[in-house]
């Protein structure tokens, strides 16, 4: 253990990452970038778990991170199918083009 980083700092970074990801989800229209932003958000959450686990010396944080990795893999598998369908049916990767299901 060379340098000890205060847990608050790690949480600040995680929050910053999460907000960046959220901004990406809300701002980008290209579905690929949208998925990448989602990935960023999940990693922000994972970082917060790791930091918290380190703080209390518990393995739970790391286990949760592994769960998040599995979740991300599953999400990508589904999402790539959606991307393919989107590009096939609309000829574009713009998510706003698929908005027929409106009230």
């Amino acid at each position, binding site marked *: 253990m060379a340098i000890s980083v205060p847990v608050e700092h790690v949480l600040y970074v995680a929050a910053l990452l999460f907000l960046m990801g*959220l901004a990406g*989800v*809300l701002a980008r*229209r290209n579905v690929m970038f*949208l998925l990448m932003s989602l990935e960023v958000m999940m990693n922000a959450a994972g970082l917060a778990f790791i930091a918290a686990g380190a703080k209390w010396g518990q393995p739970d944080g790391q286990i949760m991170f592994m769960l998040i990795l599995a979740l991300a893999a599953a999400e990508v598998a589904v999402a790539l199918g959606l991307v393919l369908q989107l590009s096939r049916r609309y000829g574009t990767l713009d*998510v*706003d083009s*698929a*908005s*027929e*299901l*409106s*009230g």
Partner: protein
Amino acid sequence: MLDLLWLVPALPLLGFLALFATEGKLPDKLVAVIGAGTVGIAALVALFAGREFLQSGEPSFSLSLWTWIAVADFQPSITLYLDALSLVMMGVITGVGFLIHLYATGYMWKDHQEPASYSRFFAYMNLFVFAMLMLVLGDNLLVLFLGWEGVGLCSYLLIGFYHRDAANGYAARKAFVVTRVGDTAFALGLFLLFRELGSLEIQQALAASSALTPCMATAICLLLLGGAVGKSAQVPLQTWLPDAMAGPTPVSALIHAATMVTAGVYLIARMQDLYLLSANAQHYVAVVGLATLLIASFTALTQRDIKRILAYSTMSQIGYMFMALGVGAWSAAIFHLMTHAFFKALLFLASGSVILALHHEQDIFKMGGLWKKLPVPFWSMAIGSGALVALPFVTSGFYSKDAILLTAYDTSGWLYWGGGVLAAGLTALYTTRMMVITFFGDAKTEPHEDSRINMWLPLAVLGVLSIVGGWFGIGVLDELLGGLGDFSHASPVAVVTMAVPLLGILLGVLVFSGRIDVAGFVESKAGDALRRFFDSGWAFDWLYERVFVKPFLWLARVNKGDVVDLIYTLTKSITRGLHHTGALTQTGRLRWYAANMAIGLIVVLLLAAGWL
């Protein structure tokens, strides 16, 4: 045979179902056989059942068919109840009904306009006979009410039989709505009776009726009188009957002269014990009868349409019956009901023959000189008119009218007797007018008569009944109902009663054949105003038009948007508005949803942190 009593109403119902189910696809000859045949067999069954009933000597016979509804204590049963009163009514309905059906097979043969309407006519007529029989045979007021509404429906359908002409539809609706006013009162009376006595079985209710307070008895009697007044076309609900003449003539004879319009008389006679509890209500019955009697007689004096003359005369004769019920001459009322059914059916059927021979000419001033050319209708009309004006000793009308007037004199003094005698004089006057103008004088329209046996036979039978029904009927009915005992025809009152119609006829002959010149009075201003007043039926239509119809139409126009419905429209509008607002958030855009989720999450977090 008495156990087969159920066949009497069942046969006409069967006829109706057969004609109704085949939708007019049967050949007309078969329709005639079914239509008249079912009623004819019903009449035969009624005859044999009646004979057996008389031989048994029992005061009443009831035949339970089944329980209609069973709800706790309320278990109205469908029971046929035969006693002297319903026996007379059943005889009139099936007997006269069959003769009219027979006549109608000939009358409607020439008179139906559409292919299926011959069958439709007999289907309605059979349904009517069924409903009327249920009305008089039902031992339960609920069954009676079923028949009551059934005959009202058939009356509506048959008045509007020639439905191509909008005026006939109007007349049918008028009859339906006006009688509905009375029916509402009748229904309220039934509710009240049921609340007070807990039973609608007529015999049970009458037996228990002495427990009623006088006030309640009067209320129930007056509500039932309301129903009777509507159905029997008495003042103040009489305005529908003259318009009901829009229907075919056999309908006028069967429904609007012989049977349905006397249902009110039957109802009051049936509920006799109830009316005996309330002298007030009985008094009103007599007042209604006397008022109708005089109003209708004066009106008949000025009518031009032969069927309307007969309609007003029917109203006045039923007025006699009501007056008789009111003064306590129950049997006389039923006796007059029977003789009236004979001679009025005869008059209507004969006038139908005249109308048919003149190609639907009903204005008596366009007839004239017909007595040689139309001998059968002429002699039928002459016999019917004789019975209507009560020619002493030879006609049936004399015996029944005498029984009413002399009983009225005995029990209620000179007022009702005087009114009745005055109306008898007027009856003689308008009947003479109708006969003189229709059958004598110059011929104005050439008749074409070709009556077959099915048309003149009913006229002949009814003609015989109109004559012998009196002295024959008085004996039978006196035995059955009592109270028709010997009336002395030698007392001064009886002589006056007898003489007034003769004077009326004499006056009528002199005036309407022109030997007494009344043109001066008729053409004067007062005479013309009086004539128009009488002609309009004492302006009842005019009054009702202004008091009820116009305000109602005005209200309907004002309330076209339906004020009450606004509450519900408002609820609907608010719901729809909320729905549209909610639907706005569903844009279908993924990023919009994500943003909302983020905002929602922030709000939840802020709430959880206690910052909001």
